[in-house]
């Protein structure tokens, strides 16, 4: 039985998926920053978080990531993808690129994803819960109703989010996200 009949196999790359996730992370990151200025509830949520709050959501092992946190004077900013030089208080790791694809093609909502053990979160729990609520609100803004109703357990009814607030908010968030 000669050994070299059974060669070593290097793992390939999934470039397209990584690009797609990177773009989505960039959009969501900027959208969070936009929403923190536009939406009252998001502002409150961030208000409750500690001042040096710095969240880093990235895909293992070396996939794309996004960092959102409060800068020196407490404003919520999207801080790109490189964690060097930043003190991360909440580190949310998605176990593999396929898990990230499931989340960002909205086949699995954030809650279902963490229920299915796709995320490995280290950092204190209250911040995580706050971030999940923020993410739900941002998704309501970013995406049409049909898609978000999959991604969220309960789509905010008329009472919680008046249509005026939703559509105006959506416009403002899009504007802020795509203007530098």
């Amino acid at each position: 039985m000669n050994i070299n009949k059974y060669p070593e196999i290097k793992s390939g790359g999934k470039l397209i998926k990584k690009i797609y996730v990177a773009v989505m992370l960039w959009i969501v990151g900027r959208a969070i920053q936009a929403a923190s200025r536009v939406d009252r509830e998001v502002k409150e949520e961030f208000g409750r978080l500690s001042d040096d709050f710095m969240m880093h959501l990235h895909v293992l092992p070396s996939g794309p990531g996004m960092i959102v946190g409060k800068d020196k004077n407490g404003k919520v900013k999207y801080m790109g993808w490189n964690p060097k030089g930043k003190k991360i208080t909440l580190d949310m790791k998605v176990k593999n690129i396929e898990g990230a694809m499931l989340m960002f093609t909205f086949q699995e909502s954030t809650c279902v994803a963490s229920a299915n053990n796709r995320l490995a979160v280290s950092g204190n729990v209250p911040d995580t819960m706050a971030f999940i609520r923020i993410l739900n609100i941002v998704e309501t803004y970013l995406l049409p109703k049909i898609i978000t109703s999959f991604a969220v357990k309960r789509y905010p009814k008329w009472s919680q989010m008046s249509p005026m607030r939703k559509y105006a908010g959506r416009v403002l968030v899009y504007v802020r996200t795509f203007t530098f």
Partner: protein
Amino acid sequence: MQIPDYFKFFNKTRIVSGKKSLENIPYELQSMDAVKPLVITDKRSVDEGLVKILIDAYGDSGLVIGAVFDGVTAYTSAKTVLDAARLFRARGCDSIISIGGESCAFAAKALNLLVSHKTEDLLQFDSLPDNMHLCPFIVIPTSDSSGRETSTRSVIDGRIYESDELMPDIAVIDPRMLKKRGKAETILPALRAMAEAVEACTEDAANPMNDSFAFASIQLICENLAAAVNGGSVKSVLGLANGIAISGIVWSNAPEGIGSALAEELAVRTGNSRELCAAVLLPHTLDYKLKNTKKSVRGELLLPVAGIDRYCAAAETERGLLGVEAVFEIVKGMNKYIPVTLKELNIPRYILESTAEAVEDSFAKQYGKGGALMILESAYNGERVSGGKK
């Protein structure tokens, strides 16, 4: 619910099942300090592209697969394991992944024994301690799996190696690995797994933990069997595979029943597959137990087999009988695709007698002198055991 005075229960295998579960493997391996697995599989799995699916799932993980050893054959021999061990050491692997049916898992477990103890001789492992430190071992069941992958046993060259530590660390059940099979090839592993689960929970020393696993396994198999055989929808095939994997755990935690002992002996003597013999003997072992043993068959069996509504609708005393009836329905219902009596297999009578004799003594006190032979005879022509109480 009767709790035995003393019992032990252990399940080392972590079940990860469902969509995109294969992609977890790189992360899981790293969390067990392993980076370079050796994949043990057989030609059929390679031809069906299952190995290719795993390699794609490895994409973007940055990890390396030590090698894919596809030399496992239906009969696992020590030579295959030694070849795999040499490859394992040559590539400097640190963990093992097995893709395929029973024989791949057996070879992988034996390989784990060899490389963890750094030895070349399998025969020195006569009785295995329960606390060996083995390499991380992941099993990926496929459509050929019949349950023994997730059990504590490995059979190499006809020799049995048994230890709690041989159970795989993780069983990854991914729908992409469950290729469509012919009707008989789908039914037989499922019925064998069900036979083992039914036997475990109708044993005298059944304990609540093993019962809950057994009920889960039986329910998964009974609910999904018909759908998996006819339509073969992803959900039903996945359900079936889960039921089969859980039955391996149940089997490892229960003493060997008369049904599986008879099936084993019959398979060795007639060359039929173990799955087929187990499937044919299952209803008749239960039928005999119902009528001829003191403890008879417990009512709770009806719940996983027939579902909660039929269970609650049945009267307390009738449940044992109805449970056995339900099992008969399921197994005999499959007679369009598989033989359901020993007569259809043309098994000569003298082989029935010698099989009964071989198994008789170890079960005599529980099932009486002619018990084994009565089971085989009723399984021969497919009728119910006549001479019993009812």
